[in-house]
């Protein structure tokens, strides 16, 4: 089942940059080709952030499969993201 992730970032702010880097690495290391990642810059698309109720950046949303699951922060703790992916695999 395809996993759809959406990462909200704030331009080149340090934690946002760290989160993008961390997510890229985690996805690569997962060796899965069924993960879609969308990066949304809140500065470029503030409306979308409002719609998704994004209060802080960086915020990672698992859009699909539902229900929506949220991880906030620089994703330094990669295990939490990996768990999010593995969870899907198992179910």
């Amino acid at each position: 089942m395809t996993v759809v992730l959406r990462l909200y970032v704030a331009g080149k702010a340090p934690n946002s940059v760290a989160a993008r880097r961390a997510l890229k690495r985690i996805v690569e290391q997962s060796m899965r080709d069924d993960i879609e990642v969308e990066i949304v810059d809140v500065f470029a698309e503030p409306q979308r952030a409002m719609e998704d109720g994004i209060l802080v950046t960086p915020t990672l949303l698992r859009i699909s499969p539902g229900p929506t699951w949220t991880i906030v922060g620089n994703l330094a703790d990669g295990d939490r993201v990996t768990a999010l992916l593995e969870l899907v695999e198992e179910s």
Partner: protein
Amino acid sequence: MTDKRTIRSEAKSEPDKSPRPAGADEKAALLAEIEDLRAQLQSARETARALIAREVDSVAQGAGDTPALLREAQAALREGQAQLRAIFEGALDGLVLMDGEGSFLEGNPAALEILGVSADELAGKTAADFVEVSPEDFEAGWSAFLEERHFEAEHVVVRPAGGQRRVEIRARANVSPGRHLAVLRDVTERRRLEETLRQSHRLESIGRLAGGLAHDLNNTLMVITGFTSLAQQGRPPSDPTQGHLEEVLRAANEGAELLKQLLAFGRRETLSPKPTTLGQLVASATRMTGRLLREDVELVVGHGADDVVVHVDPARVEHVLMDVLLNARDAMDGGGTITVDTAVESVGTDRKPGWETLAPGRYAVISVHDSGPGMAPETRRRIFEPFFTTKEAGKGTGLGLATVYGIIKQSLGHIECETEVGQGTTFRIYLPVEEEPAHGSAPSETATAGIDEVETVLVVEDEDAIRRFVVQMLRREGYRVLEAARPGDALLASEQEPGPIQLLLSDVVMPRMSGPELAKRIVAERPDTQVLFMSGYAADDLKETSDVKLLSKPFGPEELSAAVRRALDAGPKRLARP
């Protein structure tokens, strides 16, 4: 995690069930709502966690339905940030944040104080701007720091505006991503005090060593001098060995002079303190030194506290002052000004290291400043050490300031030297102020009281060398000694002496008046005075009776000491000896 998973899979599978029983729609809607609330709660919790962990960049303000939890988290975050800021600003140690390349981003007020820069000046600089280090070494050091994540060292920080501080630096890498923290502590004062303390301990031990050595050597020299004098006396003036013996005496006296200075440094010299005003000391020393100054050296004498009375041996302290003054003169090759002044300072219980020997109280201060080139720290450290001299070989013994140090210490004072290259040098001599006695007794009474404490011996001997030997010996033993070369002088001395004379130590055969005759006249005036004769001729007009004691020549220091003690102990008024 397991629980959440279970709940979620239930929620997911529920809508797929078919056919739906009655009321299933309602149930499904309810479950969907629960699921939505769960997602919101999870999101809020997660957001709060990330905020507290400071993993976020921006917070959208004014979001309509910010959950209470999030608002609390934001408030906590703001409070936490304010607290961290206060700690940063208020830390007593210097704190600086650096980026990945080692450039300073920010420093707290303590750090700015230590480095001597403003916040703006600090930004963008690196440690290499404050510490003497080559760019390559800084690069290498920085890489090593990032790898080890830790750094600890003490460095001399050169402030951009001038001046140096000794700074203890401890740093930790990655206190937050890409941010490195260094803690700076100014240890300049602490190191200076430690150095002073080491210095004074060093001088203390050298002093003990030198003093002990000099004391022993001095005894040996006394014997040489004493017996050489006796040998001379025992031969006719025409004897060719007289010249040789004269040379022996001269050499021994030179040695004794050096030893005397060493003894002074080791604080073993006998001082005769009496109340003296600072003005007297300074006037006398500057008068004597004035003649020795070159025309290009100006001597300026201030009179800040000339009337203050100190209890010191004036001759020795004048000598000390002269030494310091001549030192100042020698420091100014190209001419200049020597400024002497007096003052009074209070020393409290919070004394600096090296000053512990100073009792708290009021101190008279004599300062001597020269406008010479000043001294380098290495020189400054060693100036009070014996045999340390910057003068060329043969021009100085290196004992001058060592002696000064010893005499001042023995006078319960302190000497301090302040110097910097290009700034001249200031010596400050601290001497305890003689506080006015409560009953206002005159200085002469104080002097008499002092005399009562030690036994007085009148030495009469026409041979200079032997008299010197005996007098020196007795003074070293702690006696107060009056000396006379002729019986007539002895009678005069006895008349002029206001205090008691416990012992008359006299030669037997002398021109004009014999020893026994002199003794008879003195004892007539002073019935309590004991008499001890010294003679090379036991058979002289003397009979050893219970009243008359004889010390046969030649005698050594021990014999002299024992005989004098015996004679005194036979006296009517025995005094407790220290």
